[in-house]
């Protein structure tokens, strides 16, 4: 491969762009046959596992801890720390791979599963070894047919070659990996709902507390649930060590990050960016990334971390792609999906698209999400259709208060003189699906009040006579 090919689009991966940047998880994407065992082995595949198996599990665990590999699923919790939460001496214990990527705007795990399934398998094995887990379940979203097929083929190859199964690479380390695919529910991306689904139950989240999956998870046993991208980072860490890993990115957010950009940009797609230091301006306007807004329009707003994240304004363009910074600015990085809205965007309609999605994807378990999400959607539908009143807007805030009591995070706006309210929000729901229906709508209402005001008419006034007035008139006699 020459350098000249590295920058081109590969038509076998539409929407993926390799730039002149460090690659941790996409290093094989330049090969069309990156998903085969042959190519994998030819490009240092399973070398990380070999190196890992040569040491003790504690060494590998420590390496991951030192590397500060942050969870890429949304919460951004350090994987090495999470592994440490499993109680000692309880067997069996499971690794569950969350491949139910369904956050609106997110499509990075799909590429990782389709293009490099062996890397994921290697990551699973390293995680099982380091965290002392005895079996692995790979839960892949139901709609991702190609990913399922590629993983199934890869698993068969890996089993045949002795990388998975009993006595892996001649050691006494044995792990089985089971591929399982979902039946199509957004909420199953939530780890406890995913565990329920894996057990054959309805995909409904469990309450935590009292029990977190690390203590009581799949089949009531200690369970680590990791995101696909998180695990895909592990072969690099195992092979090159924490020093090489932390050399990329910043101290708080080392490594790289897969970011999916969609919306009104010239070049939507997935990019592996350097974690922590790349700013949203780089991602949206950078020549090696999305190359600016379509038709050179003005940027109106953007979603920094998947459909459920509060929105950012052009004011936040220089916020780096880093968890804490994004949180202070009033949103989150979530699953690494940037959705861009240009000046032509109808903000209430855009908010409706997102709110509708979350209302539809509510599992129905807890009241605020089941009833509140749909209520918000219907209020907003009326407003967008032009039949709403100012009372409807006030009612949205009331319903939102019931879902997320207290102050809701939002970005600062110089135009409106608004200070940022930092992440996170409080919630009355079991999981994040409920607040996700409210967060984008709340951002839209807060950051673009004039667009809603223009859509509504004043509510008919209620006629109410104060009791004191009645008494004065002798009406109580």
């Amino acid at each position: 491969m020459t350098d000249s090919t590295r920058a081109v689009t590969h038509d076998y991966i539409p929407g993926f762009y390799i730039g002149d940047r460090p690659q941790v998880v996409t290093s094989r994407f330049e090969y069309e046959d990156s998903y085969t065992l042959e190519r994998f082995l030819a490009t240092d595949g399973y070398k990380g596992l070999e190196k890992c198996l040569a040491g003790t599990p504690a060494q590998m665990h420590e390496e991951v801890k030192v590397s500060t590999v942050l969870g890429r699923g949304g919460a951004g919790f350090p994987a090495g720390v999470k592994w440490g939460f499993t109680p000692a001496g309880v067997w069996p214990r499971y690794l569950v791979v969350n491949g139910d990527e369904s956050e609106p705007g997110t499509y990075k795990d799909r590429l990782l599963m389709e293009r490099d399934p062996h890397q994921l398998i290697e990551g699973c094995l390293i995680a099982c070894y380091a965290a002392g887990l005895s079996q692995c379940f790979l839960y892949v979203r139901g709609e991702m047919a190609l990913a399922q097929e590629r993983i199934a083929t890869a698993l068969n190859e890996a089993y045949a070659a002795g990388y998975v199964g009993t006595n892996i690479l001649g050691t006494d380390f044995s792990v089985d990996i089971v591929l399982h695919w979902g039946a199509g529910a957004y909420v199953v991306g939530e780890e406890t709902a995913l565990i329920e689904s894996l057990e054959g139950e309805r995909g409904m989240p469990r309450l935590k507390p009292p029990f977190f999956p690390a203590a009581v998870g799949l089949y009531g046993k200690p369970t680590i649930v990791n995101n696909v991208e998180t695990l895909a980072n592990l072969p690099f860490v195992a092979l090159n060590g924490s020093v090489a890993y932390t050399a990329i990115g910043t101290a708080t957010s080392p490594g790289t990050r897969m970011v999916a950009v969609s919306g009104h940009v010239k070049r939507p797609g997935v990019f592996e960016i350097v974690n922590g230091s790349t700013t949203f301006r780089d991602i949206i306007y950078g020549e090696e990334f999305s190359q600016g807004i379509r038709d050179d329009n003005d940027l109106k707003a953007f979603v920094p971390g998947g459909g459920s994240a509060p929105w950012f304004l052009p004011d936040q363009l220089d916020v780096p792609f880093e968890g804490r910074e994004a949180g202070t600015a009033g949103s989150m990085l979530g699953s690494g999906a940037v959705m861009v809205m240009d000046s032509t965007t109808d903000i209430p309609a855009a908010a409706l698209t997102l709110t509708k999605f979350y209302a539809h994807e509510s599992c129905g378990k807890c009241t605020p999400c089941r009833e509140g999400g749909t209520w918000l959607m219907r209020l907003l539908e009326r407003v967008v259709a032009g039949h709403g009143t100012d009372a409807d807007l006030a009612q949205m805030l009331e319903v939102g208060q019931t879902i997320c009591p207290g102050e809701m995070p939002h970005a600062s706006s110089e135009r409106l003189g608004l200070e940022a309210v930092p992440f996170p929000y409080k919630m009355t729901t079991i999981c994040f699906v409920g607040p996700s229906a409210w967060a984008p709508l709340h951002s839209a209402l807060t950051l673009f009040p004039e667009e809603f005001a223009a859509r509504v008419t004043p509510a008919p006034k209620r006629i109410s006579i104060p009791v004191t007035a009645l008494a004065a008139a002798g009406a109580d006699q």
Partner: protein
Amino acid sequence: MTDVVDDTTASAPEPEPDPDAVAVTLNGTAISARKGELVIAAAERHGAPIPHFCYHPRMTPVGMCRQCLVEVDTGRGMQLQPSCMITVSPDMVIDTESPTAKRAQEGMIELLLANHPLDCPVCDKGGECPLQDQAYAHGPGESRFVEEKRHYEKPIPISDLVLLDRERCILCDRCTRFADEIAGDKLIHFTQRGNETQVMTFPDEPFASYFSGNTVQICPVGALTAEPYRFKARPWDLDQRESTCTTCAVGCRTVVQSSRDELLRYQGVDSDPVNHGWLCDRGRFNFEAVNSAERIADPLVRTAAGLEPTRWNGALGAAASLINDALAKGGPSSIAILGGARGTNEDAFAWGQLADAIDTPYRDAQLGDGLPIEVLGLKRATIDDAANAATVVLLGPDLKEELPVLYLRLRDAAVSGRSKLVEFSAVDTGLSRHAWRSIRHEPGTQHDAVAGAVADEAIAEQLAAGDVVIVTGRQSLAESTDATVAALQRLLDAVPDATVLPALRRGNVVGALSLGMAPTGYDAIDAMTEAAAGTIDVLVLVGADPLNDFPDVELARDALTGARHIISVDTHLSESTQLADVVLAAAAYGEKAGTTTNLEGRVTTVAHQVTATGTARPDWMIAVELASLLGDHGFGDGHPLAEVTTVDDVTDAIVATAPLFPGVTRAALAASPDGVMTLQPAAALPDVAVSVPARNRYDYRLTVSRTLYDRAVGTAMSPSLAGLAPGSAAHVNPLDLAGIGVDDGTIVQLISAKATVSMPVVGNVRVPRGVVWAPFNQRTERGGHIEDIIDAGATAIDVRIERS
């Protein structure tokens, strides 16, 4: 009285701090919660009830409705938490009424009401509705939801007894959790999702659970209603008293509710040692039989025109002269008194006293379908003992069919892992799938199965691992009791410390057997045999229906024909009652007060809630009046029942006279709603020698047992339940169908040495090969009576099955 200085108060040490106490602050007040207690329970106990819908103390919390959100500080600042999911921890600060908590609670009520139809004026739950009450107490007081509400077809039947209104449903998961966790009938579940989530049965699978009525009781809205009560009354019109169900011998505590002097509903009461608030559907809905038009309203006397209503003077006089004539002609041994297990302790005691006064040798509260009375003399276990024992040995009937709530308690013990069940049975029972070991044996050979099991290393180890409770009853009505008695003896030989819970079925059978209706030498089979031989002059049936309940129906028929006169004390005109010369109209359940004794020996009260039908009287009163007409053979002066006028007098007489009931005073009963335990007699099992006949390879060995619903009066006279009886059929293993050469449902002939009956054959995987199981006392639209084949004298019965 010697002069003893009581120094216990002076030197009493400081009370030990309760190790289970947890100090927490609730709404600014320091309270003492219990270790492991949920915040919601602790708050409720200390006068700060938290609104809730999904939380139910007898089920796993799920935290779904989010109504019980309160602010809790465990050291990280006040946070909204569902109080049904958080257990108390030391120094926890709980605020159930902070502005934040109240805002959240109001918000949840508003959301729950958003799609609720608010059809309270026509909703059965209105007036006793947790949603209504909590919306009143904790709601925002205003409805701001102006959108179109969800619409579903309403209501839809989800079983023969229960209807579901999905519009009213607030999706609290109570009914679905009950069906899964408590009843083990996971037949209802959520379907769809989000705003369209609804409770539903599986396609073509009704919610056919024996416990479906409980879902109606625990539904926090009017979404689930029961057919027998729908639109019958408003809750504020209901008059109610706490009582005890006497449908079977578990003795579940209930509330008996009536309106306009008509029984309308029974609700379960949470009695911790007994039923945990649950009832079976038969017990819950058989009040319909009390209200039935078939009730005997007045005493009847046989005339040339048949049974004719008469006045009590005439009927009692006729009965007394029949007894006096018999005594004069044939002496006491020409009179037999059977029954008494369906009434109260007072009823049984009065009839037992009358039997003593007459001095008849033939009396029995069981109808040849129970176990020898000595079983009650073994070291008795309580239901709690059984539900907490390390090992429960099941040596008896299918508890799900005969003692349903005991089944729930033992199922819970097994599912929760507290107890291991070792079951001996000829066919699969309701508990088989929860059993640690479920041992199949040929009908009538349980003694051999037990001998084999106690020799098994793993089972022996388990039996030695902790306390053992043996639940024993009559497994099959087609075999003698010998095999069960021998099996029980072998178990007790192997585990001498084991306690025994007798699984006898009839409501007050333990009370009746303890209060004078136990056989004194001759049991019901002897009495029937004598009657059939023509030596019984007067057969007195006290709520007994041998033609339906006595296993050997041919013997019962012969006995009722052979007895020269029959006096029947009954509530309904049963088949046996129709053969009587004198019928004395008896007050039914709910029409008389008294006490009842459950299978543990626990005495609880039975409430008098409605006026008796017609001129019907309680059994005890009939016995006392009859005695007063018997002259020298009645209660003489000084007899404890000579002067009684009220049921309380009889209760007091029991305390004063019955050796096992000294502590069962009315004051003690009033003080303890969970009941007062009787003393226990001591007895040893009779020696039995079991010889099971050899069988040939063409025959099927017969086992016959009761199902929850059958032709018994309580079911047959309750329109809602009558249709639920499975109907008579011969159940064989599906693999045996080919051997017989028939398909499922074909009418076959069952040929025994004694009789031939035809009935449909059913392939049933719960029946092992070579065995045929037939439900007892069934409707016979499609087949004959299996009872015709049963032979009271046989240890085991083999039948040949042929195409008819």
